[in-house]
């Protein structure tokens, strides 16, 4: 189990890596979205906004109307943000759930593949 603080710390690392990733920046063009993260075990909620190809700071709590909702265990969120967990396997097996339009789900999936090319 990971606390909200640990997830925030991991996210800050992830945020820096993503915002420095020029390959990802290309894919984030014209994709301004609000993503809610729900930790299934602790019930903690977080909000990530993407605007102008930049990931904003993590907000605590579910803020605003989400385009996408990602549900996973707190541990998986922390591992994913530290870059230790490639989410595609857990997504395929249904342990990580993405809810949103087909288009947004496809984009998020592709983006995570690009991020994890360097891991």
């Amino acid at each position, binding site marked *: 189990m990971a606390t909200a603080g640990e997830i925030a710390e991991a996210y800050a690392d992830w945020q820096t890596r993503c915002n420095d990733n020029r*390959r990802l920046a*290309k*894919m984030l063009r014209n994709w301004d979205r609000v993503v809610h993260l729900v930790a299934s075990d602790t019930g903690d909620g977080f909000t990530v906004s993407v605007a102008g190809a930049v990931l904003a700071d993590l907000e605590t709590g579910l803020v605003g109307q989400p385009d996408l909702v990602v549900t996973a265990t707190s541990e998986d969120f922390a591992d994913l943000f530290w870059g230790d967990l*490639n989410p*595609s*396997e857990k*997504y*395929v*097996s249904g342990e990580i759930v993405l809810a949103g339009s*087909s*288009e947004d789900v*496809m*984009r998020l*999936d*592709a983006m995570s*593949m*690009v991020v*994890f*090319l*360097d891991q």
Partner: protein
Amino acid sequence: MVVVGAGYSGLCAARHLHSAGLDVVVIEARDRVGGRVWTELTPGGAVVDQGGQWLGPTQDHLSALAEEFGVATFPTFLDGANVELRAGDRHEFNGLVPTSDPDASADAIAALLELDLLCLEVSPAEPWTHPDAVRLDQQTVGSWVSENVESEAARDLIATAVLAVYGAEPSELSLLFALGYAHGGGSMSALVRTAGGAQELRFVGGAQQMAIRLAEVLGDRVVLDAPVVGVAHGPEGVTVVADRGQAGGGRAPWRVGAQWLVMAMPPAVQSRVSFEPPLPGARDQLAQHAPMGSVTKVHAVYDEPFWRQNGLSGQMIADAGALRAVFDDSPDDASHGILLGFIAGHTDRRLESAGPDGRRSIALEELARSFGPRAAQPAEFTEQRWSAEPYSRGGPVACFGPGLLTGCGEALRAPVGPIHWAGTETAVAWSGYIDGAITSGIRAADEVIAEAGTR
């Protein structure tokens, strides 16, 4: 009723008609059922699927059929690192995309995403209704890639995926067709993936078993070794003429009359049957414009899946050479090891002249490069060249070229008098796959049942 073709499509059509209480005869050219699905037992006792073999998520009809006949499934082996042969070098990678050239992989992922997003716009049932259908249908997948993907290495990755999925070169496939086809299975990525995609599960004992069981249910209503050569049709029904093998040897023409006919085969095979009166121009032209992909499956059988001990999954992709994609095809109990390789597209056509021994040594050399010298010494080796099969003429599926869907697409499923069209090429969901074969047969049978109800 007559059903021509005892692949999954024809067999499912026939069973559906039979269950509705209608008399049915299935006429099959080969001396076996299953069509493009064929499981062979090697002399050494290995089960090899020479044709269609996988089950993926949302292929609910195939999965129901397996359950009905008690055929178990197991996941395609995936643990360990995959191998990539690129620009003459060997690399290992984890996950779906190679990491040896991250820029190229990122470009390929971005391109695949764009194709996935485009495919959501294209109706798998009626691709020609897309507002931009003509523009999409005058391009090929290859021309789209040339215009939209900068790096050559990324283009190679996409070509490898296209060859593995369609058995055809990107330059042979209409973009509109490729998008509608992919949408029918969910997305292009769904077709490419193993876990979570079209290659996720295999059948214990092979993929042909359900076809054999369906044929058992139909009993002597299935007639083998009787290639249909001609169909006479009119408002009152059809007369089908087959060249039937005789019990004591020899062949003789066999005429079967019926009120309705279901043709369950790819358009290119259908086009070799003569129709009297001739089929409407659009339907005949459709069949002329829909060549089969070209694919050969090779299986190398070893006493054990030795690559697993070296941390390898048995999956390989290559940017050149004969084998562009390889999978671990060992049985569930790993009692022996099997590597399955695909030779597809132009390479498959060119390697005709190499002959079986030439192809075998090329394939084994590439397997050894990927998985180590042991791979060069299989206990058994098989190859199945689908282009050499007169009743498939290629595989895995018909590849529709530019202009076909916008020009003749509406003729794909439109009945011609008493003649109804089945075969996986006519499916809406999972066209090109076993699941699509099943639903296309049931759909054609339902058309006939509806018409029979009004007479």
